[in-house]
């Protein structure tokens, strides 16, 4: 039962706690048990560099890079995405229709990010965790109970704006 690749991303932000949590032997073993065989990690501004040999010990191949403006290829080939709670990464993943675990940065002072993650988790589009609870979440989650996200249409907003500005409907 090989499910392949897990894509881990902190976007362009600094969130070492997430990368560290994913690369702990306990977490790698859990992922292996769930059937995943490799990790690709976008490190963002982080300073923590994953140790590939820890992955080898758990039979998981680890790759990483700093930042790529376009991560579509990774999203599209991922079987699971573990992401920071930034709305950019979250919606990119949901629109690619990938199962998603959002890890909220509990160290951020103004923690409005959990607002979005909680709302979307309530609607069953994704799972949420913190770096401390990631392993538990991975163990207990049921990916088949997630609901596919329906991408929204920004046209309504533009139409409202056109009307307000006196432009004829196009």
């Amino acid at each position, binding site marked *: 039962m090989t499910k392949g690749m897990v894509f881990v991303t902190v976007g362009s932000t600094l969130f070492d706690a997430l990368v560290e949590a994913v690369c702990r032997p306990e977490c790698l073993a859990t992922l292996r048990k769930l059937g995943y065989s490799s990790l690709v990690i976008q490190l963002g501004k982080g300073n923590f560099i994953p140790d590939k040999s820890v992955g080898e010990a758990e039979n998981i191949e680890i790759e990483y890079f700093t930042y790529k403006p376009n991560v579509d290829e990774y999203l599209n080939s991922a079987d699971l995405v573990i992401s920071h709670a930034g709305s950019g990464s979250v919606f990119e993943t949901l629109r690619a229709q990938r199962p998603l675990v959002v890890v909220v940065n509990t160290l951020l002072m103004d923690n409005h990010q959990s*607002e979005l993650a909680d709302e979307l988790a309530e609607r069953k589009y994704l799972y949420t965790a913190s770096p401390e609870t990631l392993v538990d979440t991975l163990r207990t989650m049921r990916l088949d109970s997630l609901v596919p996200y329906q991408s929204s*249409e920004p046209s309504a907003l533009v139409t*409202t*704006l056109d009307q*307000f500005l006196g432009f004829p409907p196009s």
Partner: protein
Amino acid sequence: MEEDEQSGMRWWTILLGLLVVGFVSRLVIVWMFTGQPRVTSKDSRKERSLKTLIVLGSGGHTAEILRIVEKMNFENYSPRCYIAAVTDDHSLAKAKRLEEEKAGDELKQSRFYRIYRSREVGQSYITSVGTTLLAMAHAFYLAFSIRPDLIICNGPGTCLPVCIAGFVLKVLGVRWVVMVYVESIARVRKLSLTGLLFYKLHLMDQFFVQWPKLQQKFPRTQYVGRLM
């Protein structure tokens, strides 16, 4: 002699009073017309597209606002000017890519600017006084040289000085800048600090939020669906 001085003082006081009254009434007029639909005759519509200033807020903010730009009819919204923070390496590149795809040859019309940020994450409050002044000055310089008809922004704080400068353009009568704010999709239950400030000060002509619950809390906002 003394009487002369006194009458001189009196004149200055009257002049100053008139200036204050003039400024305050202008401010009231601007506030009264804020949020009113733009009046256009059928002819002027055709000839005049709107010079649009788009403030890219980095990360998810940029992704959201570019969803709006994607749907815009460029015949109406041109030329377009994009502003991003000096420290934001990715937003302008994303905007350029979209412009290349959508506008093609007309791309020459669009402009890309970088702006100083008032405060970086983790910066101390003492040094941020200086950087805030610098950011304000830079925003005023850009707003006065671009003189946009329309400013569209969606946070975070980067857009604050730009919008204040836009409002001053309005008050001074330099240009009637229509100002549009879209609260980020990440704000489900509360407005961001920037959003709250714009809301309380009645600075925006159009104020969109992306969750119905939030619209109910702030009745002068609009909900017309989400961007992502």
